[in-house]
Structures are given as C-alpha cells and as structure tokens.
C-alpha cells in the first residue's frame, strides 16, 4: 500500500512537450509509471515517445484515457490556469512541480481546487513517489526503495539526501511526498500524516520541515492528538536570519514567528523524535520500527 498514488494511478502530463516536461515524462515512463496522456495546447494528435497520446486540453485527455492524476510542468505564468484546468476536468490528484507561481494566483487556485474535490500537491515541489510502483515526480527513482516508512517534506534535495541515507541503511519507503516550499500550497503536513496513519503498510513517518509559517507546529499537534505511528522530524534553517527568504518563497522568519526553535519545541512536546542532523533519521527510525 501507499498514499495518494498506487497501481491505479493513470497519469496525464501537462506540458509534456516542453523541456522539463518531456525529460521527466520519459523518466516516469522508464520508472514504470502508467503515463496515459500528455497535454500541450496546439499539439493534440501527436504521440510522445511514439507511445503516449498528446491532447490539446486536459478534458480531452480525461475523456479519451480515463486519466485520474496530473503532473504539471508548465511555466509559472500558466501554472495557475493549468491547475484549475485539471481540477475542472475531474482529475482527483494534481501535482504541480512548477516553481515561481505568484502567491496571489494561489489564493485563487486554492478554493477552486477545493470546490471540485481535487487534491493539489505543490506548487514548487518535487512531487511524490511510491517506490517500485509509481513516480509522479522529479525525485530520482534510484535513491528510493520499497519499505514501511512514509516520508513527507517541504524540500527537494534535502528529501533526496534523507531518502538516500534511509535506502543505504536498508530502510525502505511506502511513499515519499514533497509538499513544496511555497507559502500557499495544496497539501500540507497534516494531510500527509493523516494518510500515512491510515495506510496499513506505513509503520513510521519521517517529516522534514523548515523555517516559516506554522504548518509544522500544527502537524505536531496533529501527531500528538491523532497518530499512533511514530514520527521523526527535522527542521532546516536553524541558522537562518530573520526576515530573509531562504530560497523557498515560504522559508522566511516573519518578525519572531516561524523559527526553527519554536518548531523543534513543538515536535518535542508532541513526542516526535527530533533528528538534529539528516543522518540521525536512520537510528531514530530504526529504534521505532
């Protein structure tokens, strides 16, 4: 088992003929993901890699192929529209990889997607992977291995680092989800924790947060109140100065709020194992599995 994506995932790639879209569509196909369609307006009728049909609209792609999941690689000015188009076409899970989506666009996308009962992951995220089954992401497939730890993170390469260390230590993953580094995103830590708690194959969760906002604090409260499975957490940005945007649009300490210290405090209070370093995930998870 896994969360959000599994053997029934039928993927449409929005922006499949673009530079990033085509590169990663190929990688996902190679991994074994069931890529059923691509969308690029004006290129309907073509075939990607001589196999995947390309459509002009997501609605066409869904009607012809029954796609239920979409991954978005379109440039930032068009990303909000692409997310809303997917939701309108009845896609249940929308994963937006695009970095640089204006936050005011996201204030409009967020209720639109919610009203249509779709789940959005991202934007500005690496996507998600269920090792050995389905990859809807830019996460390198070879660093993951199937197993019983759920991984959720706001970051990209930091996730790779941790997953790589887990895999090397023989700790496999059910699903790895990158929820993205923007201030407004679709799926948050709590959504993933709830899904991992409900997934019978997930035995423990590794959670990587960072400075900015209160998502981790709320997640900690959720863990305390609603989770029976052990959670180990890490917060990046203990040395970050206040008021500066640390690469991710959402990674900023505003005034005195959103510091690593307050998040770590919340983790400890909720009984979450605190990894001081990325490498600490390995022993902390081994103790708990």
């Amino acid at each position, binding site marked *: 088992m896994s969360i959000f994506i599994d053997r029934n995932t039928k993927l449409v790639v929005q922006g499949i003929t673009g530079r990033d879209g085509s590169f990663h569509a190929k990688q996902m196909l190679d991994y074994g993901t069931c890529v059923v369609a691509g969308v690029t307006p004006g290129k309907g009728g073509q075939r990607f890699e001589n196999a995947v049909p390309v459509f002009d609209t997501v609605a066409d792609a869904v009607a012809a192929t029954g796609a239920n999941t979409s991954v978005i690689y379109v440039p930032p*000015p068009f990303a909000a529209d692409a997310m809303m188009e997917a939701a309108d076409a009845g896609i249940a899970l929308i994963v937006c990889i695009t970095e640089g989506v204006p936050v005011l666009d996201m204030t409009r996308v967020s209720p639109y997607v919610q009203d249509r009962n779709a789940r959005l992951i991202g934007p500005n995220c690496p996507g998600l992977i269920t090792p050995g089954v389905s990859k809807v992401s830019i996460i390198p497939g070879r660093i993951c291995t199937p197993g019983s730890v759920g991984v959720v993170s706001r*970051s*990209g*390469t*930091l996730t790779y680092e941790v997953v790589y260390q887990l895999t090397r230590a023989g700790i496999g993953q059910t699903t790895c989800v990158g929820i993205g580094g923007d201030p407004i995103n679709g799926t948050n830590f709590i959504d993933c924790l709830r899904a991992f708690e409900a997934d019978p194959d997930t035995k423990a969760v590794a959670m990587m947060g960072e400075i900015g906002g209160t998502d981790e604090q709320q997640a900690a409260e959720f863990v305390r109140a609603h989770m029976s499975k052990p959670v180990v957490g890490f917060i990046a940005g203990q040395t970050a100065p206040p008021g500066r945007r640390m690469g991710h649009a959402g990674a900023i300490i505003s005034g005195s709020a959103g510091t690593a210290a307050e998040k770590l405090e919340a983790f400890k209070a909720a009984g979450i194992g605190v990894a001081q370093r990325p490498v600490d995930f390995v022993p902390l998870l081994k103790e708990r599995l």
Partner: protein
Amino acid sequence: MNIHEYQAKDIFRRYGIPVPPGEVATTADEAERIARAYGTGVVVKAQVHAGGRGKAGGVKLARTPADARAAAQQIIGMQIKGLTVPKVLVTPAADIASEAYAGVIVDRGSKRAVFMVSPAGGIDIEEVAATMPDRIMRLPVDPRYGLLPFEATRLGFFLYKNAKLAREAAKILRQLWQAFLGSGGSLAEINPLVVTTGGDLLALDAKMVIDDNELDRRPDIAALRDETAENPSELAARRANLTFIKLDGNVGCVVNGAGLAMATMDLVKYYGGEPANFLDIGGSSNPEKVVNALKIITRDPNVKAILFNIFGGITRTDDVANGIVAATRDAPLTVPMVIRLTGTNEEIAVQILQQHGFSAMTDMDEAVQKAVRLATGGKAA
C-alpha cells in the same frame, strides 16, 4: 522584492490614496533645496530596505532648510542593519491628531489575503498583536469577490467612530486592495494612517513588498528595483541567477536546493563552525553558475574555507565539477575547499576533479566536519 517608501507612495497615489507630497534627495544640497521649496518644516526619512529606521536615527524632523541639509548629511550613507542608505525622502511635516494602522498581507494559514486594521497605529503591528490583540481587526478576503464595500465599511468603523472618517477610511482600504492586487504585492501597509489636525486622512508612511514571482509579468513594478540599496554580493548573485544571503561566519557554502542549503548551514553550526552564507545554485545547474558562485563567495574576506554540498538529481554533478575546474583555473583559490558530491554522473565528476588535483567526498557529515576544521585553523585532514 522590497521597494522604498517613496515608491510605495507613488503607487498609492496612483490608486487615489491620499499621501503627503515628497521628493527624493541623494545629496544634502538637494534635501535643502526641497525643504526650502516647501517652505515648512519637513521630515527627512532614510530610504532603505530595513525596518526600524526611526530607532536607528534614520528619520529626522527639520524645522529649517539648514536643518534638513544637516539631517540629510547624517542620514545619507549611514548604515542601517548592514545596508547603506542611498537616499532620503523629504516630506512636509504633518500635524497629527491620531494614528492608526491599515495593512493587507498574504496569510499562509487561511490561504488568503487578509486585511488588518488597528486604531493603535504608528507602532509595530506585531507588538499590537502581542499586547492588545482586541485592538486589531482581521478580515480574510475571498479572492472570488475581492474586498467588498460592506467589508471595507466594517473595517472603517473599527478604526473610527466618526462616520465621515470611517467612510473615508473604507474608501482608502478599497484603494489599498486595488494597489496591492495591481502591483502583485505580498504586503501593503499604511503605518501610520493619520487624521490630521485639519480632520483629513493621510497615509503618512507606506510600505510594500512585491512577490518576486510577479516581477516577470509586471515590468513596470520590476523597474522599481533599486540596486543601490542592495548588498553588493547579493546583487551580483541575483544577476547570476543564484540565491545568496550573506551571513557572518567563515565557512562559505555552495549547495543545490534551498532545503539542503539550510541543512548544510545548520550542520556547519552543529560541528562548531559558522556559515558565511546561504547559496543555492538551483536545480539545473550549468558550470557557469558554479563559476559565479565561487566568485561571489571568495569576495568575502571572512571566508576561510569553502564547502560544496551537491546532491545530484536534476543537477548533474559533472557540470558542477567542470564549473569548479573552470573557476579555479581562472582564479586559483587562496582558501581550502571541500567538495562533497553524490548522485547523477558522480563517477564522471570524481574523475574530472581528480584529474585536476581535487578530491571529492561522498558523505555530507564528513565533508562538513572537514570544512569546519579547515576554517577554524586546523591543518588539512
């Protein structure tokens, strides 16, 4: 992107918000001339991208043109929170009867833009929130409808009991919403919003922060960027498409990805060192980016060791290796360097580095410990 007070006031003015007149001076002469033309007392205000200008001595009341000159002399070129003040705004002093606060920000929790108003103005809104939370009214805006007239009226009456002032404030709030939307803001703030002794409302100070992700589609707003007000290293980094933030330590860090970059800085600290910077070379790196990154880092005289931490996913580690070779061929390093790379094309990268006399490590913790040791004066391990 931060913009200056005078630029935010220009935007506000365009949307009809009443703001006092003002002119910008980059020299004391100009400040004196502007003050003389107004023929009244003026306030000379530092234009700098840092909060707490007043406390730092960056805002001065000047009764005469000579005073304005003296104030500008003191303020232009002064340092506020590590930034040099490039210019001042000279504006007629207002007679103030009362001060309020009005602002709109993007709120992560509610995923909406949220208005905040308070009759307690002129002080930091965070302080008001902490000490007198009942003196703040918050109103999330439904993006489908924008700030509705009745909502603006509610906010107006929270600020002022007087119906005329409340209605005027409501109008200003609707204009503020349009200015915020029309500029791609992540924050727009009037603090203080004053009632003058003549009974008029006036936005005495203005602050706007623009969402960097809006700049591509708003060239007019992007043109407001004042490069003279930026830290020179950060400016060079931005021009090279790198995200760089200067810190006070001595271990220069070059990393791919924001989360890993922060985690690397934290690990430097964990092992007893201090990071000199945050630097993210981004996802699809090319050798050129690495060359620029090394140039920027080696410009900092505090840097005693350089640490590369690259996890190759989309980033090809051989690109990074080629960048390191190219950069050090042009300008040999005077400080030791530790290179950790793993992932895509790792074998090729290691080979390239070895051919040029560099060694590469694969373990993040070992690499960080070595860099800290080198920076703190230990001999090469």
